[in-house]
Structures are given as structure tokens and as C-alpha cells.
């Protein structure tokens, strides 16, 4: 055990802190899941990119600064500590990018990553379909081979696509072998949303923002270069992304440490509401945020030393998603009648309710933990 940061890591932290202090917008931006808010967030993303903070852990050639995983963790801590805006580019930089690094061709990486880092291409995830949510292997959207044109024709529908109405590109799974069952015969495609035959329709989420979209594919043609990984191997490629989505990279501990500190500040600011049981509730939430951070420190150690988290990333997802709800419930208790107004805590509460659903419902995650971490029988 050595829980101290090196001099260069401390210097990295100081540099990040200083830049963020000088540049984070003083007033919170409007929600990035609305059309207007998304545009404002894009300006912020481009400012981050210009200063080299958009994708710190990526290689310099793609717009990053070759930061270690530890430094990434430090940056995230500082990012949330500074109260910086949510990352509307997250589905690209945190979910697709790790998959591109692992499975992409040199040409795909060279073409797509710099534009992603610069927030020129904005990626959404096209996995869920009306008939395939948790049961992702049940997807029916298909891609048919067009040998003459040298590519694929996409047909079908994706839905619950986060920020789909504002993004420019979609990564998604399509069935390329109609004879294959379930998770076989799927292929991972990278699709510009302005492709002829693609239609996007935004719709409201529980919180009233147009944060969701459904995406229709009507014989939309994409070239062979739109395939990520091997044809009919899409499931394996996609699983690399689910590890990122459930695990560390989507929800870094910095986010919850900061939120828990804000909750403690809220309790301190409302002594009239902070009864003993509520103080205990706030304390318990703060403790869980600490526990999440410590778990991730152990996990990053494993990653750095070459031990893959595998199914254990489902533990992250269960913990942070349920922590996030408890955190906002405690805040709403403290706010009392004020909690019913549209405010950051009530908005956060509504958003937290999505946590146990997206990235694979927590029911599915508990099955994964039970079967693949504990070793209980599948049947």
C-alpha cells in the first residue's frame, strides 16, 4: 500500500486545478440534454480541447497529453471539484474511444479520434432497440451486404439514444448474419447520422429534456470502413465498451466525491432541517462516496498492473448508480418543500433514477455479479 501521489502527479493536479479555476464558467450551463444547453456545452468542450484537457489520457497525436490512468483520475477529481460542466462528449470519448483504441484500424483511429477529441464529431450509442434493451443480444436492426457498392445497407430502429438528436455520429450493433442466433452474427458499425436513409427523432426523458432520440435506418448505405472490428464479431467488440460503461471511465469517483461534499455543505447550510437521522443519512452517503473512490483506487492499481476487472465492473455500476440515488434523496429531504422546484438537486434526482437502468439494468448487473464474480449457477 502506498497512497501518496508522486511529485509529477501533484504537479499535474496543480496545473489542472489552476486551469480549471480560471476557465470553468462561473454560472452553471443550462442542461446539456437540451438543444440550447448542448450548444453551450460544445463551446466548453472546444475550450477544453484547445487547452489540451479534453482527453488527457489519450496519446498526444490524437489530442491528448499521454496522461497515466492515475493522472486521469486526478483530472476527474479536479474537474468535478471545480464544478465544471457535464461532458456531453462522454459517449464518444469514454465509451467508443477505448473500443477504437482496441479494435480500430490505423485509418479509423487517425480519422475519427482527433475529430472526436475536438468535439467536431459527436457520438451517440445505438444499442437499445424497441425490442432489445437489457436483452441486447435480441437486436433486430440489420445490415445487408452490398458487394457492388462495397459496403452495407442498414435497416431498423434504435431507441433511447442519449443526446441522439444533437449528435453527428452513432456507433451501434447491427445483425449481419440473419441465420445466426443471439449474440452471434452481429457487427459493430460507425455511422454518420447525416447518411441518406437515417432519420433521427428526439423525445423527452423523465426530466422533461429532449435527451433521448430514436434513430431510424431505411436502407442507409455505409462503406466497409464503417465496420469496427471484424464482421460478425460485433458482440466481442461491444463488450469491451460495456466494461468501460459500467466501470470506471464513465463514472469516475471525482463526480461522487464532489457531489457528496456538496451534500454535506447543504446539510451544514440547513441546520433547521438536518435532524439527527438526516445527518446520519448524509454521513452514510458521504461514506459511500469515499468507498467508491477507494474501490476505484484498487481497480486502477489492477489495471495499471495488467489485471482486467472483467465482470467486476458490474460492481462499480451497481454501487455508483445506487449511491447517486441515495445522495439525491438525502438532498431532497434536506430541501423539504423546496425540493419540488426545478433545481439542480431535483434535476439530479431525476437523472439519478436512470442510473440503475442505463448501461444494463442493475437487475442484469446483479445476475452478472452472482454468476461471474460469485460463481452461482446460471441455471
Amino acid at each position, binding site marked *: *500500500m*502506498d*497512497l*501518496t*501521489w*508522486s511529485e509529477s*502527479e501533484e504537479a499535474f493536479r496543480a496545473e489542472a486545478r489552476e486551469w480549471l479555476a480560471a476557465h470553468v464558467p462561473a454560472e452553471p450551463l443550462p442542461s446539456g440534454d437540451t438543444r440550447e444547453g448542448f450548444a453551450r456545452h460544445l463551446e466548453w468542450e472546444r475550450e477544453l480541447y484547445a487547452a489540451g484537457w479534453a482527453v488527457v489520457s489519450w496519446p498526444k497525436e490524437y489530442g491528448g497529453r499521454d496522461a497515466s490512468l*492515475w493522472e486521469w483520475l486526478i483530472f476527474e477529481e479536479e474537474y468535478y471539484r471545480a464544478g465544471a460542466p457535464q461532458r456531453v462528449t462522454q459517449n464518444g470519448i469514454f465509451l467508443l474511444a477505448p473500443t477504437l483504441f482496441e479494435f480500430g484500424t490505423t485509418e479509423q483511429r487517425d480519422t475519427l479520434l482527433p475529430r472526436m477529441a475536438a468535439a467536431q464529431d459527436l457520438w451517440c450509442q445505438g444499442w437499445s432497440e424497441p425490442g432489445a434493451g437489457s436483452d441486447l443480444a435480441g437486436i433486430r436492426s440489420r445490415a445487408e451486404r452490398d458487394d457492388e457498392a462495397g459496403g452495407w445497407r442498414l435497416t431498423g430502429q434504435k431507441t433511447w439514444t442519449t443526446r441522439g438528436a444533437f449528435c453527428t455520429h452513432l456507433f451501434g450493433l447491427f445483425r449481419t448474419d440473419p441465420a445466426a442466433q443471439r449474440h452471434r452474427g452481429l457487427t459493430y458499425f460507425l455511422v454518420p447520422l447525416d447518411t441518406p436513409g437515417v432519420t433521427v427523432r428526439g423525445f423527452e426523458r423523465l426530466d422533461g429534456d429532449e435527451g433521448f432520440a430514436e434513430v431510424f435506418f431505411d436502407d442507409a448505405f455505409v462503406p466497409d470502413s464503417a465496420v469496427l472490428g471484424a464482421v460478425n464479431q460485433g458482440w466481442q467488440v461491444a463488450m469491451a465498451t460495456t466494461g468501460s460503461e459500467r466501470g470506471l471511465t464513465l463514472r469516475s469517483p471525482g463526480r461522487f466525491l464532489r457531489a457528496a461534499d456538496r451534500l*454535506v455543505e447543504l*446539510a*451544514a447550510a440547513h*441546520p433547521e432541517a*438536518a*435532524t*439527527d437521522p438526516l*445527518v*446520519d443519512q*448524509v*454521513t*452514510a452517503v*458521504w*461514506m*459511500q462516496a*469515499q*468507498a*467508491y473512490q*477507494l*474501490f476505484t*483506487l*484498487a481497480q*486502477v*492499481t*489492477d489495471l495499471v*498492473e495488467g489485471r482486467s476487472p472483467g465482470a*467486476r465492473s458490474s*460492481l462499480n455500476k*451497481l*454501487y455508483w448508480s445506487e449511491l447517486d440515488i441515495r445522495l439525491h434523496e438525502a438532498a431532497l429531504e434536506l430541501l423539504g418543500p423546496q425540493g419540488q422546484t426545478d433545481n439542480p438537486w431535483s434535476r439530479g434526482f431525476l437523472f439519478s433514477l436512470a442510473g440503475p437502468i442505463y448501461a444494463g439494468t442493475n*437487475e442484469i*448487473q*446483479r*445476475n452478472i*455479479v*452472482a*454468476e461471474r*464474480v*460469485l*460463481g*452461482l*449457477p*446460471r*441455471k
Partner: protein
Amino acid sequence: MRFALTAEQQDLREVVHELMERLCPPAVVRSTPDAPAIDALDRGLVELGAPGLLLSERSGGLGLDENYLVPLLTETGWAAAPLPVLETVGVAPALFEAAGLADRLLAGGMACAADPTGTGPVRFAERGGLLVRGGWGGSGPVEIVGLSDARREPVPAVDPAANLCRIGGGTVLGTVDDPVVVERAWQRGVLGAAAQLIGLSRRMLELTVEYAGSRTQFGVPVGSFQAVKHHLASALLQVEFAAPAVARAGFSVAAGDPDRARDVSLAKALASEAAQLVARTAIQCHGAIGYTTEYDLHLYAKRAWALAADWGSAAWHRARIAEHLGLARTGTLPLH
């Protein structure tokens, strides 16, 4: 930054685990304090150097720190070792060393029980000849008591393996009131209890996964039912997120971190909550056999309940953390 055991700490953990598998199976946990098997377990721990783990080399110990204490006690916890290991290896050394009594500690095996509240009853006092009394919450004087002339009055207990006693008389061999030493001893007690709770939790989960995988009802293993899976996944989740807090607390105490009191409270609160959830879940997922004393699960559940309540309950430590967070409370801190 490296949040993992060193190779040496990992080796210690494996050696202790192997020792526990060999010398502390459930039959030993069930035996009476005078059983030869318990003598053998005591000797095994002494041969490993456990009593001197935290004693300085100058006093004849190994001069190691809390980063070693955590893996050692996690494994003795896993086995529900029916000896005062936490007390002798974790709590006693700083006190005995401060009182110039390190030799007494090294001479006696797993001999030192602890009564931090000063009001008893005391676990595992049946065998040992020594007791440390007082120091609750990390302050106040601690007496080191020789028990050769003490009266031991057995107290009926939930955990029959704990040999709970009320102690009368005894000879005070020394008193330690150096606040630094008393605080250290207390924090090691809290930390050690947390480590043992992690080990106990893992053992209960192992037993339950094994049972649920082999017990058949409706023609399938009961562990294939989603209700059972979800119970056990939730229990594991709490353990997996408590264990790093215990490891961090060990590091904080060893490094003299200014936040060590808070970190130790975090560890104990999370470990206690986790162990209580695991115990309840394990019994539930076993069905009726888990509600018997013939089956071994109760040995570990009962030790977990005792340790969860001792050295400050989860609620007690949450109250400490609330103080550290500066959250005003209308009440006063509960005594125990």
C-alpha cells in the same frame, strides 16, 4: 500510488490463510478453550511471529505496521479463530511496550484479552493471562491487568465460541495514559475488528455460494434462482466496497495521517454494515439449515454480530464521522 498489498503483505496473508485452513477448521472453532487443537492454533500463530508483529525490533518484535495487521486479521477473521488475536496482536503491543512489559506479551502466546469499555464482559479471557482495560474511543488511561489471581465468571453469550467472561480482581501490572499510545491502541482495535469482519463476511459468502450451488429444490440448484442471486450480489457489493476502506484505514494509521481517526471509523462502520448484511443474507439463502447450530454458518455469523457491535458499532462510528464532517448534531455522542 499503489492500492494493493505488497508482495510481502500478500505472502503474509497467504501464510495465515493456509495456517487457518489447517489449524482452525469449524471443529476447532466449536471446541472448548482447553482443547489441544486450540493450543496448536495458538502455537501456530506464535511460530508465525504474530504476537510481535507490531512490537518494535528493539523489544523483540517484527516492527511491522498496520498494513500487515489488516491482512493477518482478515484471515483469522475468515476462520473465526477462537483466540484473542485482534487483542493480542493488534491492541496490546503499543500498550505493553509503553509500560515496559513487552517481554510479558511475547512470552504468553495469544494471551491478552481486551475490555475497552472497562465494564466487560470480555471475549477469550478464559485462556489468556492478560487483559487491557479502558481506553474507549482512544482516550483515558488503560490498565494492563494480570489475570492469574482474577475471578472469571462465565457470561452466557450469543457466540458460544467467544467464551465470554466477567472479570473480577486481577493485578494491575501497569497503567498507560500517554494519549498517543492509547489512541493508537484503540485505532488498531477498531481497524482490526473491521479487518476480521471482512474475513468473516467472505467466509459466510463462500459457505453460502457453495450451499446454494449444490442444494436442489424444484429440480434446480437454489442458487440459480434470481431472488437468491440478487440477495448474494447485494451482500457481496457491500463487502467489496468496505474492504478497500479497511485497507486505506490501515495505511492511514501506519502513516500517521491526520485523518486516520475518520478513516478508521469509516472502515469499521462499512465493515460492520457489510458483515451484518452478509450474515442475514447468508442465513436467509441457506434456508432452514442456516437456522441450526449443527451447520457451521452460525459460528461465523455470531462472531460477526459480536464484532460489529464491539469497538464502536456502525452507528457509533457514523456519529464520529458526522463530527469530522462538521455536521452539528442535536444529541451527544453515544457512549458505546
